């Protein structure tokens, strides 16, 4: 079987773009609040279903649906912070307690979604336009996904580097107590992080659903690859997460080809992300971001 390397690379970029959008919020909240938020999966799901509602109402206006996905997921993210995670942190809950609570939040959201839209799978019902670039075949959804990820990375980068709010955000992420002592309103920064991180997770959900289908466990399906991206990139590192997202995209797409050639079931595709996750945690838990730490002296 001949392998179309160009197509594999292109697919990797598509997958990587999905992970950039989905993982940014998780890596930021993980660092700031010091716990892995398992309900992040459901933020992805909520975005996908919010987009579905708008798709139905707006005669398949996908850009508008993406906006709806962003708004819905960021609102749910902020609500989960204000109702669950913030009161817990205030009471001095430990990491395991926050983790357990995040599972509770996730389960609640997932079954609210299932109650409203049912467990059966749905689709957006869009007809994908296919473009042929020589050996590479791409759909309009693929191209929009890559474009959105690139635009998001550029905008967030400029925001973090150029604006005062962005600098305050980075300061808070580095050292919350010091940031607070410098007069930064940490509570407000946290809200903005949930807004942005939750919102792009929702956009990722809408893209993922457009590429595959809608089910209430959609977010859970990509949660562990997202965790793998976050850990590989280094928890809290936006730039690390970008690099890790594309590495993970490449690993998954090459891995599927490899699995097929080895005669193994491609059903093992999720295991690739798990293997990377476990390997990074064991060998280099600081991830890619830990590679460029300067040693003084």
């Amino acid at each position, binding site marked *: 079987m001949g392998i179309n390397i160009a197509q594999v690379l292109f697919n990797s970029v598509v997958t990587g773009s999905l992970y950039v959008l989905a993982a940014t919020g998780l890596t930021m909240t993980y660092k700031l609040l010091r*716990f*892995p938020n398992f309900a992040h999966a459901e933020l992805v799901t909520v975005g996908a279903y919010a987009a579905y509602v708008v798709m139905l109402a707006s005669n398949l206006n996908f850009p508008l649906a993406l906006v709806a996905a962003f708004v819905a997921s960021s609102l749910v993210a902020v609500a989960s912070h204000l*109702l*669950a995670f913030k*009161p*817990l942190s205030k*009471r001095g*809950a430990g*990491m*395991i*307690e*926050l*983790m*357990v*609570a995040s*599972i*509770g*939040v*996730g*389960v*609640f*959201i*997932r*079954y*609210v979604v*299932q*109650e409203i839209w049912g467990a059966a799978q749905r689709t957006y019902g869009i007809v994908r336009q296919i473009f042929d670039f020589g050996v590479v075949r791409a759909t309009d959804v693929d191209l929009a996904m890559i474009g959105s990820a690139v635009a998001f990375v550029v905008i967030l980068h400029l925001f973090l580097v150029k604006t005062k709010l962005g600098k305050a955000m980075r300061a808070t992420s580095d050292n919350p107590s010091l940031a607070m002592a410098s007069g930064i309103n940490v509570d407000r920064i946290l809200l903005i992080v949930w807004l942005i991180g939750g919102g792009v997770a929702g956009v990722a959900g809408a893209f993922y659903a457009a590429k595959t289908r809608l089910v209430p466990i959609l977010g*859970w399906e990509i949660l*562990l690859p997202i*965790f793998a991206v976050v*850990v590989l990139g280094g928890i809290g590192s936006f730039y690390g997460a970008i690099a890790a997202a594309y590495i993970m995209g490449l690993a998954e797409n090459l891995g599927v080809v490899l699995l097929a050639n080895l005669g193994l*079931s491609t*059903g*093992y595709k*999720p*295991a690739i992300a*798990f293997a990377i*996750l*476990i390997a990074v*945690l*064991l060998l280099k*838990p600081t991830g890619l971001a830990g590679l460029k730490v300067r040693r003084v002296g």
Partner: protein
Amino acid sequence: MVDVVSFVFDLLTITGIFGILAISLNMEYGFTGLANFGKVAFFAIGAYTAGILSRFQGVPFPLDVVCGILLAGLAGFLVSIPALRLREDYLAITTIAFGEIVRLIILNEDWLTRGPMGIPGIPAPLRDVLAGREWLAFYTGLCFVVLAVVYWMCERVVNSPYGRVIKAIREDEVAAQALGKYTFKYKAQMFTLGSAIAGLAGGLYAHYRQFISPDMFVPMVTFLIWVMVILGGKGNNLGVILGAAVLEVLERGTAFIQNITTLPIEPYNLRMMIIGVLLVVLVLFRPQGLLKEKFIKTRALKVGEEKG
């Protein structure tokens, strides 16, 4: 009309099996502080070992379950070697990933597990001797005897000098190390023990259901066991059995309500929403659960009290 007797026996059996699972998580998380989010994997290993051995290899009843216990314990031991050296959140993520890998293997290795079709016709012990309801009563009794033995054994462990070491590790691992305890060994032993007990529950479950399939071993099962432990009271084995009972009654309750009235909401979804909210509310307002952990009692303390 619902058969009330069978309904009650079924409720009790499942409570017994999940009570065993809740104790196994309690040994790891409640007493030793190990956040194992892959509990379902060891439950599945026990269930599939018992199922495959008894259905396809003709291994007789208690022996196949024992093999499941050993295999689940071995898996737990192997996972614990790398995983227990990790930070607590990394341990949680790693064990979740391990649970998913086990489910993927069960799903994809058709030659061994029949993949998504599952394994039907797992022999039920003494089924040829006992009739429907009598068998149900027998199996319920069996599960409760096993639960009682597991409870007794685990209480012996946690109320011993050994038990005080693992609680010390939970409270402050560095302090325990400073006192000369090789904490990794204790943690690995508790993880192995907890996994083996989960394997036992898996074996009992496979023979009770007489059918197992990969979709019975989803991450949600792990989360349910966590709810039982947190609701019942972490660090209290009686409490977590109570937690298992409350959760099972909640499950049957929501299903039962639908039989008498029509709910505007799907009972299964309702139950899951309640469980989600319950987890957050418990962690927020009653982290110690229904029954608090008991104070440490030793003979030396009693002697001290007598002397005044």
